[in-house]
């Protein structure tokens, strides 16, 4: 039986892994579908303390993982399908394999939202992307849209100006959630144009994206706009599907934890990072919560002895 299984390999999960490994608990990390989590699609992380120069999200998460491996953390490229509470343990079902563990840390993070319009799935990978770092180079000298108003949308727009001849930010509200510094960078970029407050109603094209139908959310005006690429950065939803019948979850899918701790409604199960954070959603916060989860779990295992 494992002492602790950590579901997720983003900043929260890997911090919990480092701390529990250093406590001699020999954690097993289930790294999930996208190892490293959401941060891996960030071209440059400029607000993570200790890094004077911006660092790519991929590189930052590689360093987290190497640090965890140095302390003996084991990894499996699996995701949890279901967890069952047995008399003395938790049975973690990964579909092809089941493992028993004394305790579980849920750090599965969140997954990128899609536009949820009928024409979207057909064009995914054919003009629609959720990763500007990965797919930006396919749009050299093209016009692309970035959908969203947060930091990720601003960063993606600025990054895409390295490839595209024009980038239009489309945002549904008349204000932006992004930090002032990211908005300023986008506003100072002459290749970036703005369509606020507009939403995408329909995506046009035969095999690849050729344009969109947009609607103004205030005036209800409708217009057609030619573009070859659409980068979606409209936020994330917590990844709690496998745990919704196990621990208490709020109406938006976030796992509920006791205030000031990482304890969930189920004894022996802890949650940290974006999976239980509807407010901050920052790597630095996730790291702090990962540390808390490891310490809470250690106390729990000592009591259970």
């Amino acid at each position, binding site marked *: 039986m494992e002492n602790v299984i950590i579901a997720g390999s983003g900043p929260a999960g890997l911090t919990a892994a480092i701390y529990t490994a250093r406590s001699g608990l020999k954690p097993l990390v289930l790294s999930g579908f996208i190892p490293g989590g959401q941060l891996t699609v960030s071209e440059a992380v400029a607000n993570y303390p200790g890094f004077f120069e911006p660092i790519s999200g991929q590189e930052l998460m590689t360093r987290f993982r190497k640090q965890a491996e140095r302390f003996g953390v084991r990894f499996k490229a699996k995701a949890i399908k279901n967890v069952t509470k047995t008399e003395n343990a938790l049975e973690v079902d990964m579909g092809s394999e089941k493992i028993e563990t004394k305790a579980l840390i849920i750090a599965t993070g969140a997954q990128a939202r899609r536009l949820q319009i009928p024409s979207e799935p057909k064009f995914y990978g054919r003009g629609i992307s959720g990763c500007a770092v990965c*797919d930006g180079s396919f749009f050299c000298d093209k016009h692309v849209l970035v959908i969203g108003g947060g930091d990720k949308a601003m960063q993606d727009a600025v990054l895409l100006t390295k490839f595209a001849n024009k980038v239009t930010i489309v945002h549904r509200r008349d204000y932006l959630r992004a930090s002032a510094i990211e908005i300023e960078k986008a506003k100072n970029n002459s290749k970036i144009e703005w369509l606020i407050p507009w939403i995408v109603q329909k995506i046009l094209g035969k095999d690849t994206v050729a344009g969109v139908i947009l609607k103004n959310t205030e005036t209800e005006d409708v217009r057609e706009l030619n573009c070859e690429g659409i980068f979606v950065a409209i936020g994330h939803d917590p990844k709690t599907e496998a745990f919704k019948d196990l621990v208490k979850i709020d109406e938006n899918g976030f796992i509920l934890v006791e205030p000031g701790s990482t304890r969930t409604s189920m004894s022996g199960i802890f949650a940290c990072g974006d999976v239980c954070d509807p407010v901050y959603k920052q790597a630095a916060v996730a790291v702090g919560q990962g540390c808390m989860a490891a310490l809470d779990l250690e106390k729990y295992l000592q009591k259970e002895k």
Partner: protein
Amino acid sequence: MLDTNIKQLETEEDVKKVITENENVMICCGRMGPMCIPVYGIMEELKKSFSHVKFHAQSFDIPGAMFIKKIPECSSFRGLPFTVYFKNGEVVAATTSIQTKEQVIEILEQKFKA
């Protein structure tokens, strides 16, 4: 070079050799990015259960990747990785961007019946 245990193809000749010498071949052409790494992981996981399929990876940024990039089925692709399935040297399926294990298994079972 990609950081994966899947055997990598370097040149166009390597690709041609693999697809002509093997009945069932899956080649994932990408980078070490968040959309590609999961697909290499899925391939590693499925290697044992699909022993009649040859699994290969290729870096998208080397000249040898031109063979995959020029395949007509990939002409509309704008998302990494490009994953192409060959049967007796012919393209039988191709996908763009990240795929789930279920999506990969569906193609392998449909196109490469054991």
